[in-house]
């Protein structure tokens, strides 16, 4: 009665080919074609100039394709980074103390900062080829995708119940086996949700990544981001409209072919919460029923994974084996030494750069920048306030009518994935028409892009109101105001703070595309650190760039430590419930 364990599903009649094989075959060909095309690009000639972007809508599918390829490559890189970094960070207290703040710093540096570094280093390594700039773009997209996934993975691994960890250990699973069989599965649901948010983040900064204007260059890589940037520059309203339409279509396709199957597959790994409804995916179903896909899975995928898994296994031990950890220890020491040397080199270079920077800057520069930082900070606060003003009432409604959350979900998912900056030209036109200066307008732009963090979180908070408490409130005949004060607000508050923290963090990043805007031949600007940052990165002046990066980073981290974290701790202690 022993089944062959690779066959998870019972394939009943076992026809030779099913109807599902057709789309699967098409998918496989598409992947192969993409890889071939990519290979050809590598050997391609010098980088494209601004004129290269064709605003005809017929070019959009091709541009979308190029952008998607970059996004997916960056996503793959993000996954690898997440697994390594997140796993390492969760492995010990000491690791957390170093890697945690480091992640904070990484998250606080806006994408343009990274892009400057990438472009600079890659143009040294591979001067004047398209590949260098492509890599820069991919790496830049990576920086707008990776950090929240890393946090999510880290949180998930830290939340693994202790008895599961012990069970894994007593069964003799090695470190790597535990990683694959315990840590990764327990993180799948948060990772899938964060994937959706990462793609949203990637799209938001796509223009910044593909239309490379840092360090005095003006390179337009072929892609939707460049298309949009060029369209805005030339004030081609038709092109802008096409871009918006194409993006909507693209996200719908992405949702159908990528997110939905992922969500459906991830259900097996879920703990089950109110927002995780039953996801059905036609694509996943097709994959599961397609014979072609099964063959690939069983002949290629599963043996490969088994190979990984077996190779990581130590040979079966006798009950007591004095394991020679000396070899492992020496290897570890060597690795650490290497790391120390690398870090020393890095630190030396950084010190040199800092010294250079300090020579060039003056105190009044710094003070001026700090002042600008405060302006941006005010806008960030305004963004949080606006988002709360919109979504808190909604969450109140959801708290009283939990089924409404289901209806909201598609809207939330779409909002999180769709890059709001596509609407910026429209909003700017409205500002100009209404005479609203950008100094206020940019807060609105930030809100448009960032409200979803707060939205998701407060709705989750509303849904978390315990049923029995709600019933007790009804039974006691509490008025609406009383219910809000005693039941709904305490439940939502911690969630709101979480949303505010992530929203604020994102808003700082958005400031670089909301405080300075290209509008036709005009450049609209307002006083703020984001605008200053954008301006600094267009120059080739490294000391200024580094100063900006340092200041922006400091601002974000300070705001985090001084405002948001204490607020969060207060929320947890006061309203944390029965913990």
């Amino acid at each position, binding site marked *: 009665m022993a089944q062959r364990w690779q066959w998870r599903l019972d394939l009943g009649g076992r026809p030779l080919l099913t109807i599902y094989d057709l789309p699967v075959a098409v998918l496989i060909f598409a992947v192969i074609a993409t890889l071939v095309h990519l290979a050809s690009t590598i050997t391609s000639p010098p980088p494209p100039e601004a004129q290269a972007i064709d605003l005809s809508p017929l070019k959009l599918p091709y541009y979308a394709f190029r952008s998607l390829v970059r996004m997916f490559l960056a996503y793959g890189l993000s996954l690898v980074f997440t697994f390594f970094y997140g796993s390492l960070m969760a492995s010990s207290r000491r690791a957390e103390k170093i890697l945690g703040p480091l992640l904070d710093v990484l998250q606080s540096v806006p994408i343009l900062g990274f892009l400057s570094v990438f472009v600079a280093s890659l143009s040294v390594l591979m001067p004047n080829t398209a590949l260098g700039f492509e890599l820069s773009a991919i790496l830049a997209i990576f920086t707008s995708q990776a950090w929240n996934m890393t946090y999510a993975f880290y949180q998930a691994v830290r939340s693994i119940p202790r*008895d599961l960890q012990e*069970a894994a250990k007593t069964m003799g699973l090695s470190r790597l086996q535990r990683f694959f069989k315990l840590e990764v599965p327990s993180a799948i649901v948060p990772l899938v949700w964060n994937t959706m948010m990462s793609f949203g983040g990637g799209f938001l900064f796509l223009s910044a990544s593909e239309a490379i204007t840092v360090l005095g260059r003006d390179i337009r890589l072929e892609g939707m981001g460049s298309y949009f940037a060029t369209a805005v520059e030339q004030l081609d309203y038709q092109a802008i409209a096409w871009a918006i339409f194409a993006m909507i279509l693209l996200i719908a396709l992405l949702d159908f072919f990528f997110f939905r199957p992922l969500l459906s597959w991830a259900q097996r790994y879920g703990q089950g919460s109110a927002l995780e409804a039953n996801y059905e995916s036609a694509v996943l179903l097709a994959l599961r029923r397609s014979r072609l896909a099964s063959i690939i899975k069983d002949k290629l995928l599963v043996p490969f994974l088994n190979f990984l*898994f077996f190779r990581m296994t130590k040979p079966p031990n006798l009950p007591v084996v004095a394991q020679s950890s000396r070899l492992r220890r020496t290897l570890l020491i060597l690795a650490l030494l290497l790391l120390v040397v690398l870090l020393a080199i890095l630190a030396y270079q950084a010190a040199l750069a800092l010294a250079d920077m300090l020579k060039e800057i003056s105190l009044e520069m710094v003070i001026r920048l700090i002042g600008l930082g405060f302006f941006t900070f005010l806008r960030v606060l305004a963004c949080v306030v606006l988002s709360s003003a919109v979504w808190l009432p909604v969450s109140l409604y959801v708290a009283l009518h939990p089924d409404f959350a289901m209806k909201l979900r598609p809207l939330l998912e779409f909002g999180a994935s769709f890059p709001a900056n596509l609407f910026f030209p429209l909003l700017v036109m409205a500002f100009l028409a209404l005479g609203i200066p950008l100094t206020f307008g940019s807060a609105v732009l930030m809100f448009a892009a960032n409200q979803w963090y707060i939205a998701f979180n407060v709705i989750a908070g509303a849904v978390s109101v315990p049923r029995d408490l709600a019933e007790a409130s009804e039974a006691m005949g509490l008025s609406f105001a009383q219910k809000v004060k005693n039941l709904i607000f305490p439940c939502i508050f911690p969630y709101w703070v979480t949303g505010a923290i992530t929203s604020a963090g994102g808003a700082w990043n958005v400031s670089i595309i909301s405080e300075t805007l290209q509008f036709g031949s005009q450049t609209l600007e307002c006083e703020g650190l984001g605008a200053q940052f954008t301006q600094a990165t267009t120059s080739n002046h490294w000391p200024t760039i580094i100063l900006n990066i340092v200041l922006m980073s400091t601002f974000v981290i300070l705001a985090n430590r001084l405002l948001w974290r204490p607020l969060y701790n207060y929320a947890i202690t006061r309203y944390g419930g029965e913990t």
Partner: protein
Amino acid sequence: MNERMQKKTVPIIELKGVSKWYEVQEKSAKVVVLDNVNLQVNEHEFVAILGPSGSGKSTLLRIITGLVKPSSGEVLYRGSPLVGLNRGSALVFQSFALFPWLTVVENVELGLIARGVSPKEARERAVSALDMIGLDGFEEALPRELSGGMKQRVGFARALVMQPELLCMDEPFSGLDVLTAENLRGELLDLWLERKIPTLSMLLVTHSIEEAVYMADRVVVLWQNPGRIADEFKIGLSHPRDRKSPEFKRYVDRIYTVITRQAEVETASKLKPFTLRRFQKLPHVHVGALSGLLELLEEKGGRSDIYALEAELGLEADELVPLTEAAAILGFAQVYEGDILLTETGKAFVSSDILESKEIFRQAVENNVVLIRTIVQSLKTSAKKRMREEFFLELLENHFTEEEAERQLDTAIDWGRYAELFAYDDESGVLYLEEAEAQEQSSVNE
């Protein structure tokens, strides 16, 4: 004769002088979880480790399975020092610890695959283990589809499929309802007694005296603060054992005696009512539960065998003993050789109306509980009749760990509030005398 002596085998696991402590940095103090434990498990033995929470029995089990290294002492497996994970033992968890995203059979075969057994063979062995444990047909189910009892069966199958020499179980039946637990216990005993499994010895950690006596050949009693072996009992009864038989009850009584004697040693003697030398370790019980116990005692004529109370109240030993301790501290009852007797004060407490009984409680608390007395004194002498809880916590942390100090204060506050000796504001963490009490206190002083 000689051959038989030579055949005496090395114990499967032996602990010599094993201690485990944790450094507490802020105090540069040690929290000793286990103190100088000597333990042996031989072949064909079923050993139960019995102890209340905090006695380190889970830590002991983890040292035996190799998850945790002792701070001092030796752990010998078959005579050789144990390094790293104990590959001859398997562990069954109280909370089942199944991987939620793996099917039942995938859960069971996981350990085998990790050891390098081929998928085909691992699958076969897993399926037969599930068959033996009675879960045939549930191979492809996910854990969330199973009841508690079925999940624990999977836990057992997963442990047994690795063919361990020593099967370690950490309160495996505590997470199950009474009937399922009873069922599973019986089946496990069957498998063990009829040698249907290749396991040589069993090690069961439990807090239920009855369970220990019912299943084990030898019961090791651990006590807390620090965790150490209080006593060991060989259970000479043959299976199947009858819980109602006098021999069974005698074993249980003996064990109760040992436990309550340990509990007495911990609490400060009642003969020193007015010394502030040492804070007693207050048992964490609420006044309501205590009243319930005393009322039941009264109904029984003021005296009862503690073990009999277990059944009536539906409590386990580690829930009942704190109640008896509390009653003893307050002078409402006396514990002697496994029996508990209501004192005159206790009788008065039970039979009066609410106001009178509060008065009796208040006097009992003030006379007998050092910590509460200290609190009241401090509040009286303070200018505003208020003190922050940190003050008392720091005082307590000289005698207890940080965590235990908090719990002690919580209990003292619970009792003090009931006695209306003082009040407590949870948000600000302040203890204070209320107006009426303040006046009362000052009028008492005059």
